[in-house]
């Protein structure tokens, strides 16, 4: 895979840099030490740009550590609204002595560096614009408290960067007040730091030496900034979740923690009582076991976890599939195998979700690509779980779950919750009897009753061992097979109910991309690059759920080659697709894989596609 940019990109970059100021199109990277409190500063910086109406995205590249290891926060501002990660850094804020040299060496020529003066970074390169700032010294002016000084140095760089990029100081002040809402003392201290940074930069530097500038535009009005886990938590709350049981694990912890915060605000009734239960379990086995117990008893239940938790939950997931118990399981994926890179992103749990547990199993997996979809699919997942009486997965990832994304405000779900085929006392009176695992409607979905239903025919025995239609223990081959075939039929029915793909057919396109989840952002930007740089029309199939829908084969039929873009080593989604398609269509599948733990970027996709297509022509 070529690593360097193709000529087209070089030309574009030259134009960007030589043709005067670069407006609203740059990446800032802040290199700090984790635990140094830079998160607030970075949020203020990002929000300031956002409030100027400029599309922006923020990605935190952090270590699996509490304090003391390197962390990088990247803010991408892009007037065209591209919010995928961009490989190239334009503006570096070097605050971490340990990584400063490497951070500087990694930059392309003519980029900008703001750094702690004492690090003497200007000795390493001649082709960069250096702006040394005595952060430590400036912080002394504000407070004698050394711990506080460290935090305030972070706000000083916000002031410096703001001055150099010409960010409206009024917007920064609003962002700062929002960040430290209700803490007047913190607002005042940070405001002082901000002003000191601005003043220093104004008096010391010639800001025309920085080509990157923020000019007010109108592309973010009415938009929100939110991370995927918060969005998913909101989706759960508005889906009427009543029982959430979880065990802490990066990068999913914030989902249930945020859920707990919102539920305390919006789901406590007038008498002060909660219409929900959120329980931190002793491990993932217990977390999913509780969720299943609650789902069986009729609650809208959920748990959230990451790959290692999914591994631990396998046995229960199989029980949920076979005994037909609804629950929602969020997998906010990270880099595996094993502990892997716990704070980096990947899409490598696909097969372990779709086929989770021993025996013949197959599951419904929803694949949100955006924060809007985290909200919507969290909501949908509960309807699907109860409709299909089975565990339903929502697969997000660290990049989507923990990073800040710009989005339109979420739409209020106006439809009635689908609680599925649950028989009431009245139903039982009418029917007289009930067979738990009988396929009455021909869709593979049986009827269930909830414990506590006051009718002599309501009860049944749920078990993970072999059972017949009446839920009685059975080892009979015909009972076993009939039940397994019905479960398969139920999965076929699900194809018509899962979110369909979003397909973008390009005129005359012979090739197509197939992507899902966060890969989407790199693909849409890559499509633009391929159009502009290579005049190459390409179709795009954004997969939103497993099982696949009928559209999949149709898309493969219409194209000569389909490039499945995913963030794992083995091309797991490609494998699934190959299993599904007839051989002549499966042969059209090509694979583009990005699996370093860093979010995939558009240039990578473009380069990979171009290289692969060259190979096809030879």
């Amino acid at each position, binding site marked *: 895979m070529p690593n360097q940019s193709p000529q087209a990109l070089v030309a574009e970059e030259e134009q960007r840099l030589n043709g005067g100021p670069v407006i609203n199109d740059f990446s800032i990277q802040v290199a700090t030490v984790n635990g140094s409190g830079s998160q607030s500063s970075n949020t203020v910086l990002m929000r300031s740009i956002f409030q100027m109406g400029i599309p922006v995205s923020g990605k935190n590249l952090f270590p699996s550590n509490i304090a003391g290891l390197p962390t990088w926060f990247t803010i991408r501002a892009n007037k065209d609204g591209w919010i995928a990660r961009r490989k190239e850094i334009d503006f570096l804020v070097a605050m971490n002595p340990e990584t400063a040299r490497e951070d500087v060496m990694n930059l392309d020529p003519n980029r900008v560096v703001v750094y702690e003066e004492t690090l003497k970074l200007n000795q390493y390169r001649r082709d960069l614009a250096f702006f040394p700032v005595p952060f430590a010294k400036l912080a002394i002016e504000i407070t004698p408290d050394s711990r506080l000084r460290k935090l305030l140095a972070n706000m000083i760089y916000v002031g410096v960067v703001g001055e150099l990029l010409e960010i409206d100081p009024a917007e920064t002040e609003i962002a700062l007040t929002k960040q430290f809402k209700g803490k007047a003392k913190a607002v005042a201290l940070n405001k002082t730091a901000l002003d000191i940074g601005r003043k220093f930069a104004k008096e010391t530097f010639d800001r025309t030496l920085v080509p990157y500038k923020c000019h007010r535009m109108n592309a973010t009005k009415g938009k929100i900034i939110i991370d995927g886990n918060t969005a998913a938590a909101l989706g759960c709350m508005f889906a009427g979740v*009543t029982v959430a*049981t979880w065990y802490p694990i990066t990068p999913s912890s914030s989902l249930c923690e945020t859920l707990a915060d919102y539920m305390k605000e919006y789901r406590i009734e007038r008498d002060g009582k909660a219409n929900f239960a959120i329980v931190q379990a002793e491990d993932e086995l217990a*977390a999913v076991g509780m969720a299943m117990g*609650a789902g069986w008893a009729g609650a809208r239940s959920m748990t959230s976890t990451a790959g290692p938790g999914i591994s631990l939950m396998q046995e229960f997931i199989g029980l949920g599939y076979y005994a037909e118990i609804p629950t929602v399981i969020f997998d906010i994926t990270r880099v595996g195998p094993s502990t892997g890179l716990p704070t980096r992103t990947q899409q490598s749990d696909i097969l372990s979700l779709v086929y989770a547990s021993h025996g013949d199993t197959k599951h419904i997996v929803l694949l949100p690509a955006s924060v809007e979809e985290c909200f919507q699919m969290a909501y949908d997942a509960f309807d699907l779980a109860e409709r299909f009486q089975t565990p339903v997965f929502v697969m997000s990832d660290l990049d989507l779950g923990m990073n800040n994304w710009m989005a339109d*405000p979420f739409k209020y779900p106006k439809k009635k919750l689908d609680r599925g085929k649950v028989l009431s006392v009245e139903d039982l009176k009418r029917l007289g009897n009930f067979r738990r695992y009988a396929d009455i409607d021909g869709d593979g979905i049986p009827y269930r009753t909830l414990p*506590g239903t006051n009718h*002599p025919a309501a009860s049944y025995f749920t078990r993970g061992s072999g059972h017949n239609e009446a839920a009685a223990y059975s080892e009979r081959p015909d009972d076993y097979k009939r039940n397994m075939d019905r479960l398969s039929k139920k999965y076929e029915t699900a194809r018509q109910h899962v979110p369909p793909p979003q397909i973008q057919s390009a005129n005359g396109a012979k090739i197509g991309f197939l992507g899902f989840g966060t890969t989407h952002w790199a693909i849409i930007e890559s499509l633009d690059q391929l159009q502009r740089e290579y005049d190459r029309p390409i179709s795009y199939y954004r997969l939103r759920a497993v099982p696949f829908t009928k559209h999949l084969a149709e898309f493969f039929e219409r194209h000569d080659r389909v490039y499945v873009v995913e963030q794992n080593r083995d091309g797991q989604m490609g494998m699934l697709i190959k299993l599904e398609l007839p051989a002549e269509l499966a042969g059209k599948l090509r694979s583009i894989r990005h699996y370093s733990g860093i979010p995939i970027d558009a240039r990578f996709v473009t380069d990979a596609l171009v290289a692969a297509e060259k190979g096809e022509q030879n």
Partner: protein
Amino acid sequence: MSMTTQQTSATPPKNMNRLGFTMADYKGAESTLCAGCGHDAITSQIIKAFYEYGVEPHRVAKLSGIGCSSKTPAYFLSKSHGFNGVHGRMPAVATGVMLANKSLISIGVSGDGDTASIGMGQFVHLLRRNVPMIYIIENNGVYGLTKGQFSATADLGSKAKSGVMNDLPAIDVCAMAIELGCNFVARSFAGDPKQMVALLKAALGHRGTALFDVISPCVTFNNHEGSTKSYKYAKDHEELLHEISFVPFFEQITVDYSDGETTDVELHDGSHIRLRKTDKGYDATNKGAALDTLRKCQELNEFLTGLIYINEIKPDFLTLLNMTDEPLATLPQERVQPKEDDLREIMAELM
């Protein structure tokens, strides 16, 4: 699992309990366990206790893990929902069930392998949380379904059917339960139906986890000479901590119990459990003494049965969570889905 069912004032007809159910309403499918299995005796006591106390079958959730013991919920209360889950994980399922529907009465049946080995992690956390349920360990010291391997409750020096001696100490689930804050800890014997029924009825009146460690001999793999979990050994060695009687909330208390020989504990539902002292002079409300007794018991290889510890003060897990009075499972959409204005407010904060 305190009952809130109102009392019926009229005396029920013969062969019917106060709610109008017959004993048959509490029976289940026929047992497939070995003839003479201690577990079947326990099943009979469960049926009797639930009948006599007067529990509405539809309000019961029967829960279990995997093993011979875990099959038994199919053999009682067939008018109740049952859930036979995965090995050692019944506590999590039970917790979830009770979170979803606090009006249910949960009874979990586990074994010594299911609880003290594979399920130890969940067992201790269930106790720590004090999830309201009856938790019965049908303890026979062996794995029956896999043909007689020792379990973690097999006593040191106990002999397997194959002749192998157990050289590891037993885990005392009762002592552990008291340490972890369980407030109703009983040890009983499958061959002592009277005590078992009185204790089970008391457990129905207790709100919190009620733990039963019931020695339940495995007639196929652990009922031989040299076993400390055989019928013969248990019968020869059982010593009662006290004589137990149960006075339900729906019956008038007429007997004077302030004779110094009887401890009377009022349960959450208003029932009373009356513990008549034997020569042991045992006080079941003293946590330190309970632990001390269990320690000595283990040292001397004694088999003491009765209500080892009871404390009716500690709140159960569901009370701590301060949930709505109605079950969460069946709350209507308008109560569990916040309003459109709420979403608008949240969105505005994120702008």
